[in-house]
């Protein structure tokens, strides 16, 4: 019972962080801060992946997203230093920070309660997780999905060549 409530608390924290930082990414006009907020979103989602026991997804989330893609974003943003531009709709709220925190907590608790309600309505069996091992994922990837798996390497190669060709000076 204690472990379960700890899981709930952890989940609620991660979900709140994810929603808050996602809202920051969606509405912030400061691009560098938005990238850092996006890192927080990715890491919170990685934590949630760990919590629902899919460590592989959490790992590649941290490696590929937080590690590689966002560093690329950060480099490009610092390289370009885009001017802060006006957005079409200006926010009416002066104190957005505390309001965002309240909104995030409220949203997280709201969907937690909705999830609880769904479970009381439909019964827990409807949402029961079925577990599978990481070995299963790996063998599936290297047998049923071997062709797409190999094609991703070609895709990445083409993306590298394309990026270099597009970005280089004539």
């Amino acid at each position: 019972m204690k472990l379960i409530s700890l899981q709930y608390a952890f989940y609620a924290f991660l979900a709140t962080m994810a929603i808050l930082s996602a809202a920051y990414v969606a509405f912030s006009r400061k691009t560098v801060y938005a990238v850092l907020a996006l890192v927080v979103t990715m890491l919170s989602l990685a934590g949630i992946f760990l919590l629902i026991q899919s460590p592989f997804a959490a790992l590649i989330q941290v490696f590929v997203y937080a590690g590689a893609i966002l560093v690329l974003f950060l480099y490009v943003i610092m390289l370009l230093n885009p001017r802060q531009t006006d957005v079409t709709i200006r926010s009416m709220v002066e104190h957005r920070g505390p309001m965002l925190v309240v909104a995030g907590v409220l949203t997280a608790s709201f969907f937690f309660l909705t999830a609880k309600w769904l479970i009381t309505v439909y019964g827990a069996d409807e949402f029961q997780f079925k577990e599978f091992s990481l070995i299963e994922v790996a063998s599936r990837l290297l047998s049923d999905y071997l062709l797409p798996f190999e094609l991703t390497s070609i895709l990445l190669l083409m993306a590298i060549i394309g990026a270099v060709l597009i970005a280089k000076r004539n």
Partner: protein
Amino acid sequence: MDPVFFPANLLLSLAIFSLGVMGVLWHRNALSVFMSIELMLNAGNLALISFAQRFGDSAGAGLVLFVMTVAAAEAGVGLAIFIRLYRQRSTVELDKADELQG
């Protein structure tokens, strides 16, 4: 695992996806739009993982790898295009790049 995490994850995914859509509509800066797209991809990943865990299908967990690969390729090429765009008109505002609008 507690079954409450499944609907909670789906609702969280919905929330993050909606925020991503709002970000795409809100921003004019190409980089911010791109980051909002990443948000949407992440929400999709979360839903994918949750469904994979719910139905015990390992294919969903493998599919996440493909989504992330495509996202990485997209980020590489897209950011290269933005660099090119910036060099040509020293801005990455999407409203300024409207030659194809006709």
